[in-house]
C-alpha cells in the first residue's frame, strides 16, 4: 500500500504533489479567513467604541488558556512528524493522540465560553437581553462577528481532529510509516494553520 499510485513516476513525485496540493489548499483557506478579517477591520473602523467594549467583555482567561492549549497541541503533532520520520510509530501515535485530546479540550473550552455568553444574554444576531440593556446599537456587530469567526475556526478544529484521527489509524495500520511520513506532515501542517488562525483571532477578539 505504500507504493506510489500508477500515474506517478515514483513515491517521491507523489510526495511532492501531495505537499504542494496541501499548501495550495492552505492558501485557499487563508483567503476564507481574510474575508473575516476584512469584515473585522471595516466594522471596527466604523464602530471603534463598540469593539472596544466587546473585547473588554470577552473572556480573556478562557481565550488565553485556549491559545496555550493549541500551541502545545501543535508542538506535539510536530514532534509526531519527527518521530514517524525515524520510524518510531508508537511515539508518533502517542504524540498525535495528545494533539487530538488537546484539540477536544480546546473545543470544550470554546463551548463553555459560548454557554457563558449565552447565559449573559449575548447571542449572535443581537439575540438576548444584553442588547436591550446596552444602548450601543453597534455591539451586536462585534458579537455576531465573534460567533462567526470563532465558530468557523471551531469547525476547522473539528476537521483537523478528524484528519489527525484518520492519520493515527493510518499509522496503526502501517499505511503511514517512515517512507510515507509526508502524509502525517500534511495533516500536521493543516493543524498548524488552524493554530495560526487562532493566533490572529485571539488578539482581535480577546486582547485588543
Amino acid at each position, binding site marked *: 500500500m505504500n507504493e506510489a499510485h500508477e500515474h*506517478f513516476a515514483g513515491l517521491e513525485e507523489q510526495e511532492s*504533489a501531495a505537499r504542494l496540493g496541501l499548501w495550495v489548499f492552505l492558501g485557499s483557506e487563508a483567503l476564507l479567513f481574510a474575508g473575516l478579517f476584512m469584515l473585522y477591520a471595516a466594522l471596527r473602523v466604523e464602530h471603534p467604541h463598540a469593539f472596544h467594549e466587546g473585547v473588554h467583555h470577552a473572556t480573556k482567561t478562557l481565550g488565553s488558556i485556549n491559545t496555550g492549549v493549541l500551541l502545545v497541541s501543535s508542538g506535539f503533532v510536530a514532534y509526531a512528524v519527527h518521530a514517524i520520520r525515524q520510524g518510531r510509530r508508537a511515539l508518533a501515535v502517542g504524540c498525535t493522540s495528545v494533539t487530538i485530546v488537546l484539540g477536544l479540550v480546546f473545543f470544550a473550552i470554546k463551548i463553555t465560553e459560548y454557554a457563558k455568553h449565552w447565559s449573559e444574554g449575548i447571542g*449572535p444576531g443581537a439575540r438576548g437581553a444584553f442588547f436591550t440593556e446596552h444602548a450601543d446599537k453597534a455591539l451586536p456587530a462585534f458579537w455576531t462577528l465573534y460567533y462567526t469567526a470563532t465558530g*468557523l475556526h471551531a469547525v476547522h478544529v473539528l476537521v483537523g481532529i478528524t484528519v489527525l484521527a484518520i492519520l493515527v489509524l493510518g499509522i496503526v495500520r502501517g499505511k503511514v510509516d517512515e517512507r510515507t511520513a509526508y502524509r502525517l506532515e500534511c495533516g500536521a501542517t493543516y493543524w498548524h494553520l488552524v493554530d495560526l488562525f487562532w493566533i490572529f483571532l485571539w488578539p482581535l477578539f480577546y486582547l485588543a
Partner: protein
Amino acid sequence: VSYLSIDSTVRSWLLTTDHKRIGVLYLFTVSFFLALGGSFALALRVEHLGPGPTVMTAMTYDRLFTLHGVTMVWLFMIPSIPAAFGNFFLPIMIGAKDVAFPRLNLLSYWIYVAGATIVLASLLFGGIDTGWTFYPPYASTSPTAVFWAVLGIFVIGWSTIITGVNFIVTTHAMRARGMRFLDMPLFVWAMYGTSVIQVLATPVLGLALLLTGLDHAFAWGMFDPARGADPLLFQHLFWFYSHPAVYIMILPAMGVVSEIVPTFSHKRPSSYKAIAYSTFGIAFVGFLTWGHHMFVAGMSVVDAGAFGILSMLVAIFSAIKVFNWTWTMKRGAITVKTPLLYVFAFLFLFVFGGMTGVAVATTSLDVHWHDTYFVVAHFHFIMVGGTLTAFLAALHYWFPKMTGRMYPERLGVLSAALVFAGFFLTFFPQFLLGNGGMPRRYYDYPARFQTLHVLSTAGAFVLAIGMVLPVIYLVWSAFHGERAPDNPWGSRSFEWRTQTPPPKHNFLAQPDFKVGAYEYETPLEELP
C-alpha cells in the same frame, strides 16, 4: 484499446478516476445546464414580447431571471471549459497519465452534481427571486428559498477549489520529463491561471454566501445596518469573488482560442510568451477591479477612479492576446473549419464586449448605464459571445479526439453562423435599450421599447436553433460519424500526437515532446 472501449458499464463511467472520462461526464452535465439556463432565458425573452404581463406573473419573472443567472454562472460557465476540456486535455498536453489526484477529481465531479441538485431543489421550495447576486438586505428577508440556493452554490465552490488545486499540482508535478513551463501548450497556461483564481477567489464567495445563508435561515444579521453591520461589505466580498470569476470564465476561453488559431493558421503564435504571460496579467489585475461594480454604491471619487483605471488595465492584457491571435493568422495558411469560425465570432464579440467594458469602467458613463440593459448586453457579449463561442469552438475542435469520429462540417458551419447572427441580434438591441434607460431585471417597460425588445427575442430564438443543431448532429456523429484520424487538423500540439481516441494512460509509450507544440516549420511526417 481506447479510454472509451476499455469498459462500458455505467458503473465504470460514474465511478471512473480517468480524467478523460470525468471530463466527458462534466461535458454532458454542463451541457444539460446550458440547455436549462437557455430555456429560462427564452421564457424571459417571450415575456418581453410586449409591455405589461405577457405570459407570466412578475414573481415568476423574478424567479426565472435569478435562476437563469445562477444556472449559467455556477452550473454552466464556471465548470464549463476548465472542468470538461481542461480535465480531458490538460494531462495529455503535459504528457501525464492522469491528474495529480484522480480520486479527488471524481469527488469534485460528484460534489458539483450534489451542489447543482441542491440549487435546483430550491425550485421545489419556492425558487429564488433575489437575482444571482443575492444582495442584502433583500436576500435576508426574501420569502423565497434563498438558503437552499446559496447552500448549493457553497457546495459547488468546494468542487471548484478541488479542481483548481488539482490542476495547479498537476501542472507542477506531472509534466513529462524535460518539459519546461515555456514548452507547455498555451491552453495549459490558461488553465493554470484559471486555477489560481479558482483557489483564491472561491473561498471569499463561500464566506459571503455562508453569511447570507445564515442570515436568511437564522437572522444572523452580519450585514444588517440596524445591528451595527453593513450591507455594503457583502458587496465587497461578493465581487471580490464574482469579478475574478469572469476571468475563470474567459481565461479558459482564451486558452482554447490560443490553441485553435495556430492549428488552423498552420503557424507558430506570433508571441508565445506574450500570450502566456498576459494570462497572469489578467489573473492578477482581475483581483483589483471588483469595486467597479459598486461605483454608485457610495464609493469615494478617488476609490472609483482607482478601480476604473485598474479595470481598464485588463483591456490592455486582453488586447495583447487579441493582437497576437490576429497577427498569428496574418500570412498563415488558414483552413476555415467550424472551430475557426467560432474563433472569428469570439474575436469580434469579445473585442466588442471588451470595448464596452472599458466604457462602463469609466465612472461618469457608468452612472448612466449602471443597472441598465447596457450592462446586461456588455457582460453577455463577454460571457456568451466569449465563453460560449469558445466552448463551442473547443467542442468541435476536440470532438474528433474525444469521440474518434468527425462531425459534419456543413452543419457545423451553418450552426456557427446561426449562433453568431442570433447572438448579435439578441444582445445588440440591448445596448440601445440600456442606453435609452431600460433598467435590468424589470418585468415591465414603456411601449417605446417594444421594437427593440421584439428584435432581441427574435434573436434569442435564432440563437436557440443554432444551439440545438449541434446537440443533434454531434450526438449522431458520436456514433455514426466518419472515423477520425489521429490528427485531422494537422496540428503540432501534443494532444494530437496520441491515438484517437486516446488510450487509458493517454500515450502508449513515454511521449517525446522534442518538437514543440507550435513548430509548424517541422513537416508533419517528422513528428514523433
